[in-house]
Each structure stands twice: as C-alpha cells, then as structure tokens.
C-alpha cells in the first residue's frame, strides 16, 4: 500500500489538452473521489496511473518509486473500467481469477481467493456463467471482484455506478461503500455525480477540463468551494449563480443582480478587503424554500414556473428570473405547471459570494 502521486502530468489528445499540468496525491489507505463532468480527464488520470496510457509530460510516483515508464504488468493496480471490460468468452470465475493466474498463483490459492471475494459480493451463484448470461448488476460486481481480488497498490473504480439503473444505484452505492471500506487499501473512485462524492469520499478532488480545481476533505470542498466552477459543479442540483454589483443603501450594502437585490452587510468585513465592485452570488437550490416555510432574514421573490422536473421523490422547479432562471429543490413531489407563479424565499446570510474578476471564493456561509 503506498501513496500515489502525479507531478505536473499533462496529456494532449487530438490537439485537446486532456490533462493540464495535474498535481494530485492520493493518500495511502484513503478513499479519494475524483469528481468531474464526463471528459474532464478523470479516466485519463486513472489510465495513466494504471500504465495503459503514457503522459506527454510529468511523472507518476508509487511512494517514492518513479513508475512513469513501467508497463501495467509491473504496477500492480486494480482497475474497474466504466464499461466493466469483462472478457466475454470467459466465465465469471476465470474473469476474476485472471490477475491471479497472471501472477502465477497456485490453483488452490486462486480458488480460495475467488470464492471468498465472490461470497462478499454475493455473486457466488454466477461464477460459472458467461458475462452475457448475467444481469448488469452482477456484471458490475464481477468487474469489481476482478480488481479487488488481488493485493494492489491502488484500487481504481471508474464511474462504476453510471450505467446502473438509478433506482438500484442507491443500494448499490451503500453496499459498495461498505465493501470498499472493508477491503481497505488506497481507493480512488471517479464519478460525475456530486451526491456520490458527498456520500463516499474522505477526500475529494474536483477536476474540470483537465485541471484539478480543488483537493481537500469532502466537507471542506463542499462548504468552501475555491471558485465559481467548483461551487457550481460540486452541488446537487447545480448551484444557481448570478453576477451582480455592490450597492450601498444607507449603512446596508446589497449586491444587485438586476433581477434581485441581496443584502450582504453581514459579509462586509470580508468584501472590503477585496475592494472589488463586481461579484457573483451563489445559492444552492436546496437553500431556497417556498415562502410558506420559515426562513431567517429572508429575501422573498415571486417568479413564474418554466417547468417542474421530478427526480425520484424530489422536485426541481425551474423558475424564470430576469432573462436567466433560478432552480429550487423541493424534497417531495410537487408539480407546478408552466406559467404558474410561485413565492420563494432564501436566507441572505446563506449566500456564497465569489469575485467576478477572478471567480475565487470571497465569502462562504457558516455551515448551518
């Protein structure tokens, strides 16, 4: 078990900078989540660590050993591909046993290890089946078993739950979390879903178009996003963001976004230090309540519904705000028809403030 470190790794493919000077350390025995939209470079980082891809510049260290030039064979990593990459012509048993056979382990030991990991993942009954004879969930577990069955320096899972039907994704995630915690070792987990990052990780690295925007403990990154991009992405559903100008009225100060004025006097001591005029306000949809609910120092708005989107047992209402829109999250199924007017309110002290010039975080609300 060992720290895995990437130093100034860059990779260009087809003229597009897929990785841009990435410095990232995945601490030993930690559960690190790489969060970022598809195509942000998460998979490329995993592929470079696994050695199936070489970086254009930069180096990779396992502990203090430089493995940049080593072929995958000598890196001893466990890798769960997003497409599972199960060998279609081999049974589940042979798929899982493949790394052990490559390491020339004894038949008895292979048998014992495969059956124990299969037991843990509840796939003992499909061991003699071919991938096409299994359900999606079973195939996914076989892929995970193949990665975890060996003692690897690092276990990498590339969006394992993305192609799982979202109804059973939640239970799969809980089960996966329990299993990976038990397995121990260094675990790296890539996902585009902020909720997965929140529920799984000790450490989170937010990666947007090839750049590690922020790395830290999950709470730290969620509650104090370093800039507008991280704030927008590491939030489910995505954070509402509105550029606005600082305006002084009497001894109160507001940020006027054209469609609303938000009081920010409480953040003045921080804002003055930055001596800028233009800011970006950030409000997460779940921080916005229907006016009927109690909200401290509220800002009330009445907006027109564009469309209500129901996801699981919750609703996302898209409201017209000036020429942009504001999305609010309601934790139950409430459908507002397009055109219907809605009174909403949010606590002006819970607003994130970013500098418009640099996009950096200026003020973050205390954790409620």
């Amino acid at each position, binding site marked *: 078990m060992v720290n895995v470190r990437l130093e100034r790794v860059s990779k260009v*493919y*087809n003229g*597009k900078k*897929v990785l841009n000077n990435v410095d990232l350390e995945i601490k030993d025995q930690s559960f690190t989540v790489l969060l970022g939209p*598809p*195509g942000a*470079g998460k*998979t*490329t980082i995993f*592929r470079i660590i696994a*050695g*199936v*891809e*070489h970086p254009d510049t930069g180096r990779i260290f396992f502990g203090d050993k430089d493995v940049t030039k080593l*072929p*995958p064979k000598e890196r001893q990593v466990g890798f769960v591909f*997003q497409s599972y990459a199960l060998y279609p012509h081999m049974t589940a048993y042979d798929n899982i046993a493949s790394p052990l056979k490559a390491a020339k382990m004894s038949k008895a030991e292979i048998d014992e290890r495969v059956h124990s990991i299969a037991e843990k993942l509840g796939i003992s009954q499909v061991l003699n089946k071919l991938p096409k004879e299994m359900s999606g969930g079973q195939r996914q577990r076989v892929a995970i078993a193949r990665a975890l069955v060996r003692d690897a320096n690092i276990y990498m899972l590339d969006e394992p739950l993305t192609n799982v039907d979202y109804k059973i994704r939640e239970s799969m995630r809980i089960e996966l979390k329990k299993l990976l915690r038990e397995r121990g070792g260094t675990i790296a987990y890539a996902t585009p879903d902020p909720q997965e990052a929140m529920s799984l990780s000790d450490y989170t690295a937010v990666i947007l178009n090839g750049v590690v925007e922020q790395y830290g403990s999950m709470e730290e990154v969620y509650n104090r996003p370093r800039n507008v991009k991280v704030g927008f992405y590491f939030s489910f559903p995505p954070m509402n963001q509105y550029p606005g100008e600082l305006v002084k009225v009497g001894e109160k100060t507001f940020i006027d976004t054209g469609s609303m004025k938000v009081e920010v006097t409480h953040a003045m001591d921080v804002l003055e230090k930055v001596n800028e005029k233009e800011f970006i306000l950030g409000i997460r949809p779940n921080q916005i309540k229907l006016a009927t609910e109690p909200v401290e120092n509220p800002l009330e708005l009445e907006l027109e519904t564009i469309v209500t989107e129901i996801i699981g047992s919750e609703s996302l209402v898209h409201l017209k705000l000036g020429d942009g829109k504001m999305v609010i999250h309601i934790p139950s199924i409430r459908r507002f028809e397009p055109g219907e007017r809605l009174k909403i309110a949010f606590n002006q002290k819970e607003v994130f403030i970013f500098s418009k010039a640099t996009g950096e975080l200026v003020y973050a609300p205390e954790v409620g």
Partner: protein
Amino acid sequence: MGSEKTSVVKGKLSNLLSYDFFAVLPTTLVFVVLLIVPLITEFAYAFSTLTEPFSLGSIIFVLNDPLYLWSFIRTVIYIIIDISIKFLVGLIAAVALRQVKGYKILWGIFLLPYAMPLVPALYVWYCLYHPAWGLINYVARTTGLTSTIINFLGDPSIALYSLIWAHAWRFTPLWMTILLAGLHGIPEEYYESAKIDGATPTRTFFRITLPLIKRYLLLNATLSLIWTSGEFVSIWVLTKGGPANSTHVLGSYAYWYMMAGGNFHVAAAALVCAFPLLLVLMAIFFRILGWR
C-alpha cells in the same frame, strides 16, 4: 466518454522488438514479395519484347491488334451485363423471398449454385446449351418455341452472352445474399414508421428502403465490376475464346499469348494496358466508400 484514448495497446512501429512489429512483418513480406515484385516484373515484361529489354514494341503490338481491342470491349460488356443480371435477378429474388414464410431455409438452398465449385457449375450450362442433346433446345423444340436449333456456344453472335449468363447464374445467389443482408440490416422501426406515415409498399421501397442501402449496393456493384474484369474461367471452360475468337476477353487473350504463343511480353502488355480500366473502377469504389 469524450476524450479518445491513446492506449499503449496501440503500438508504434519504432520499438522493433514489439508485438506489433512481429504481427505485421509476415503480411508485409507477403505483400511486398508476392504482390509488389510481380507487379514490377509485369511492367518490365510489358515494356520489353523478346529481343530488346526496353521497348514499346509489345505495347504497340497489343494496341494495334484488333483482337485485343475487341477483347477489351468484350470485357467491358461482360462486366456490365453480368452485374445487371446479378443485381436485377438478385433484387427480385430477395424482395420475393422476404415475403415468403421460412425464407431463411429457402435462402440457404438457393445458395447451392454458389456453394458448388465453379467449373462443374459452368459444365452444367455446357450440357444445357448443347445444340444436339442440350435440354434448352429440346424443350424449345418440343414446345415449338423455335424451329431452328440455337447454337448457344457455337454462334459467334450470341456465344459471349451465353457465357455471361452462365457466369451470372452462378454468382446471382451471392447477390441475393448481399441484398437480403442489406434489407435485413434496416431496423423494423423504419417499416413501421412508413406504415404509420401511410406509405404504400412500393413507395416505401423506393423512397425509404432503397436510399438507405444505396451506398451499400453501389459499393458491392463496383466491387463486382472490378473482380469480374479479370474473368477467365468461363471462357476457358465453355468456348476457349471461340467460335472464331468471338468470345476472347482480357484474361483469355493474355493467357493464350502466354501459354500457346509463349510470348510473355505481349501477355504482360495486354494486362498492363487494361490497368487504366481497373484504376478508374477502383477510384469509383473509393469515392463511394468515402461517402457520408
């Protein structure tokens, strides 16, 4: 996944000891030694004669030989009529078969002429065409269709076309399969959508089905034109170029000069002079391949 991967599995020729080098070496050797070298040798022979190493003698001889000119023309006729028969009969058969229950079994049986070896298949038509005891003449006589005997392979005016029919007959089942595969490849939703949009069967066929497989058919048609231009066997088996040299094509012309005449130079010149025809057909093929 957005970014295309540049996996190490995709080898580079640089590291000589790599798997990629050994995997590609044998085929490159075959390609260079058994295809490029013969091509160069053939040009060497074409641009020389029995006496002088560098001369246009053979080329000039061939271009002035009326028999060569006719062989060239007959080849062009051969490949065009051949593909037309294959395409039309194949199309009718494919469309008809799809309406019939159990068309999969019939399809297998209809492939028989293509499955059996080429030479016996041609001999079948030698017997059927035979003026004396051939079945076609016998049936024509007994049903009174024609009183005179049709000498399919003996009459210079129709010998070539009898040849082409025998050849096309043997390869039509292949074309039936190509067409069925094309029709088969179209998702069911297209036909259902057409039904809902109120298109009649014929309108559906010409406005929806054919355009969808047009590129695929043209590719295979051009491929057939190119391959059939090298036709030799049907001439060698059925007419040997006769009667009165009326059925010689490029392949047989070159063969006879090479074996009977013993003059490789003329044979080579005959083939090399036909390369332009090949290159034109191949250019058409690659253009269609490049289509959307």
